[in-house]
């Protein structure tokens, strides 16, 4: 158990080192995480599917290659044998993909997403598929058709969303790494409220092929981890051009791991975004954010203030563009070719009525809300006023970023205005729910990269606070450089990783779920 604890609490980088040094086997590492999932996931509900056999088979293959030595062993990827969890919005051969929706329950993809192909090429065992708000629509994972995920810091609270499953899995030591998707903050906001690291790469930096689309012009796959370096390692596995995604950037990937290892921020200009803190932000969030600024300043960075006046329109414009694209992207879920098919209870059996009955039964309320909103926004006579105006706002936000990045190398803000709220607290108030993403949405609207890392615990509730870094498009390396420095300064202050302070999930009263198997 002690050894298992050590394995599950190790970073991916540390595990890679132990595997390369043959101190542990990939099967031991993978089994330790599967044991942890068996022990705690009954409480956390981070996983919708656990991929035990395949994960162990891949791990055994890595061990066999390493044991045989020679060129094949030399050529193993650094992360070979390091297990990973995949958000259930990303399609995988051999495992179900549900997108958190009843409409896809039991569906198996006939093809792998490009990022999954890259995980397989690196021989990273896939532990399973993680929970999410249905079709990634939500900020709390409560909109999953398969029950909410619970925040490992406080099981009565939300783990953020939509990627609450991936963030909670990593925070609960069920996986060292996970993949997320971020359309308006679905990687970064769960990272903030679970005390983990999450990165939304530059739009086009990671292939979207095989990520079930919510809003094509905003979606981006990215890494979820406990350390900045681990995110850089994973980002390098999944990033780079993909001919299957026309919006994928042709540029070669930068050395992000090297950027995470620079170790200083001397002379860097870090811009505080005037509009993304202060009013509307919880005091404890604001306090931790200010402490991070002080640390960066002490480390030699120059702190400047920038103004992005059009960010105040970002949330409104986002809630026109995202539902518009989603209304079209989700049209294919109609019961004709795959997934759920529901027949109308009475009346004529026409194709339109079968499609209608299927969609009525298969989609949850939040999905329906967004489809209706998007359908309306794209309608003839309303298009210019809604979708057209929202696209103009998008241009204004991009200009705000351009101006800000003329003054600063990296921008900084709290990731989310509050710490994790209680399950159910905002479920019936969509607008309050949407406000969680106020600080993360501008990056998606402009296509720039963003990283969230733990900034400490809020004074009033002892829950994690996230600090967000933003960089110009294609400058993801800057996020890793600044993020790694801030992380080490904070951990020095805390005397270890923030997650060391998270409650143990196995030593409490619900021990019947626990134990190793």
């Amino acid at each position, binding site marked *: 158990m002690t050894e298992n604890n050590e394995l599950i609490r190790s970073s991916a980088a540390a595990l890679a080192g132990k595997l390369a040094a043959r101190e542990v086997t990939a099967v031991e590492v993978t089994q330790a995480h599967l044991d942890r999932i068996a022990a705690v996931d009954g409480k956390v509900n981070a996983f919708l599917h656990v991929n035990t056999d395949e994960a162990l088979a891949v791990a055994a293959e890595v061990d066999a290659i390493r044991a045989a030595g020679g060129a094949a062993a030399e050529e193993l990827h650094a992360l070979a044998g390091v297990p990973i969890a995949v958000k259930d919005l*990303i*399609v995988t051969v051999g495992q179900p*993909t549900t*997108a958190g929706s009843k409409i*896809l329950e039991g*569906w198996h*993809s*006939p*093809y792998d*997403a490009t990022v999954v192909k890259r995980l397989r090429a690196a021989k990273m065992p896939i532990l399973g598929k993680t929970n999410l708000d249905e079709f990634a629509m939500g900020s709390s994972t409560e909109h999953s058709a398969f029950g909410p995920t619970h925040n490992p810091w406080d099981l009565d609270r939300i783990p953020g969303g939509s990627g609450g499953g991936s963030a909670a899995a990593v925070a609960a030591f069920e996986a060292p790494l996970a993949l997320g998707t971020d359309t308006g903050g679905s990687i970064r906001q769960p990272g903030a409220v679970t005390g983990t690291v999450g990165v939304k790469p530059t739009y086009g930096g990671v292939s*979207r*092929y*095989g*990520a*079930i*689309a919510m*809003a*094509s*012009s905003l979606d981006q796959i990215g890494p979820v981890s406990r350390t900045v370096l681990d995110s850089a390692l994973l980002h390098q596995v999944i990033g780079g051009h993909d*001919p*299957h*995604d*026309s*919006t994928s950037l042709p540029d070669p990937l930068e050395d992000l791991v090297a950027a995470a290892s620079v170790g200083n921020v001397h002379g860097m200009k870090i811009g505080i975004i005037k509009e993304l803190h202060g009013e509307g932000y919880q005091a404890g969030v604001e306090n931790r954010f200010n402490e991070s600024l002080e640390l960066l300043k002490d480390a030699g960075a120059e702190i400047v203030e920038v103004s992005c006046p059009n960010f105040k329109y970002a949330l409104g414009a986002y809630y026109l563009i995202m539902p*518009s*694209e989603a*209304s*079209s992207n989700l*049209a*294919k*879920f*109609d019961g*004709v*070719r*795959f997934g759920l098919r529901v027949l109308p209870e009475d009346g004529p059996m026409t*194709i*339109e009525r079968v*499609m209608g009955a299927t969609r009525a039964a298969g989609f949850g309320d939040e999905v329906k809300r967004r489809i209706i909103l998007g*359908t309306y926004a*794209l*309608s*003839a006579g309303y*298009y210019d006023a809604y*979708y057209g105006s929202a696209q103009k706002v998008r241009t204004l936000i991009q200009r705000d970023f351009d101006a800000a990045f003329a003054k600063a190398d990296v921008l900084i803000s709290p990731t989310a205005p509050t710490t994790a709220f209680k399950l159910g607290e905002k479920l019936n108030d969509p607008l309050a729910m949407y406000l969680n993403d106020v600080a993360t949405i501008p990056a998606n609207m402009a296509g720039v990269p963003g990283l969230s890392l733990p900034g400490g615990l809020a004074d009033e509730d002892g829950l994690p606070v996230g600090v967000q870094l933003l960089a110009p498009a294609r400058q993801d390396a800057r996020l890793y450089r600044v993020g790694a420095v801030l992380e080490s300064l904070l951990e020095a202050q805390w005397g270890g990783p923030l997650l060391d302070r998270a409650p143990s999930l196995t030593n409490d009263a619900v021990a019947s779920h626990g134990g190793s198997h």
Partner: protein
Amino acid sequence: MTDATLSFEEAMEKYDPVLGFEVHVELNTKTKMFSSAPNVFGDEPNTNVNEVDLGMPGVLPVVNRTAIESSIKIGLALNCKIAETCRFARKNYFYPDTPKNFQTSQYDEPIAYDGYLDIELSDGTVFRVEIERAHMEEDAGKLTHMGGAAGRIQGADYSLVDYNRSGVPLVEIVTKPIEGAGSRAPELAKAYVAAVREIVKNLGVSDAKMERGNVRCDANVSLRPHGRERFGIRSETKNVNSLRAVEHAVHYEIRRHAAVLESGEPVIQETRHWHEDTRSTTSGRPKSDADDYRYFPEPDLVPIVASREWVEELRATLPEPPAARRKRLQADWGYSDLEFRDVVNAGVMDEIEETIAAGATATVARKWWMGEIVGRAKNADVDPGQLGVAPATIVELNKMVEDGKINNKMASEVLDGVLAGEGTPAEIVEKRGLAVVSDDGPLLEAIDAVLAAQPGVADKIRAGKLQAIGAIVGGVMKATRGQADAGRVKELILERLGVEG
């Protein structure tokens, strides 16, 4: 239910037709518009598909570069401007032939726009048709409705869908409203579609077979009283898939519209289905300009940038324009203006070119197509090229005639056999026992008999009046029931009578 119609002449007397065409051209690229699945017609259903064509969750489109090149070539051949950048859009509608429930199509940013095509009518008049745009889109799958009436979705028991055609690249060529055609409207319609077909065929960007749906025409017709500027309400006759049908459909719709207007009723804006058997149209679905497809720019694709260098490179690869080609062919073939115009109007210029390429002389090719095949096509009510005569068949038939194995009359009979599917010309000659009597023995016997029966004629020939020989040849042909080689008969007669030919 049949609609009332006026006679064409009466319709023309009272109304002025305005036309418009949307011609869909299927490109013959190796792969589909947005996926790497093969673009192949007629295979086992749902085999030429991958996850992209099936619209599986998570898939993304990638534009086929060759399809863009083909579209630019079509645009250039139609004298269009080529957009420096343009985008695809999504046309959203729920229908099971479209797996994503939206069609990826260009909308307000076509790759080619503002062109024209000069159409030569049968009497040599040139009529300019303005091209509004040529845009790229993907084809839908093919639905087959089982049970119920007339193969329509309404009332069907179930429907089968084949996604092989889903994602096949299309270029849609849209004309501006065509005014001023008057009573030439049906002829212009046919000539326009023929010209578009000829262009895409010469460019090599489409197989251009109308019977396979490679080129499909939607014909818009409206009428207005003479002298009025505002257009009448139009109907759109969908999927008119032969040149003759285009002509007939426009002819019919003009007559139908005229009858509706005469009755004082408004024409309904709707799509119409063309019926080849009755040469008439029936009502399809109402089409209003308010159909809301919720178009928006396709966010999964980046804009297409057609640099001027690229466009000029493509322009340099264009084959000679149809008018220049016609001039060249006429000179090569040595046809008179009248002969050549007849060939063009009969729609057999390509066929004659292919027949010459297969080994026939220009004279022989024209003789066969114009003398034998065009008439048969007219009787069968199909375009001559669709009758099923291969150039090689003509070459073979002609060789048999030249070799004296059969005569022209028999050759025509053999052609009927070929069209009836009885086999190759050689097989039919054999089966039908059509060989020319080439053994001189029976011929001499017949000649002697005819000469003996007409001694006066024989004397005239002996006296050098060679034109009199026709009567003897005729008699011999009659006696041999046409199975003799007339040339040989003539030789033998002269030989018999000791006259130098």
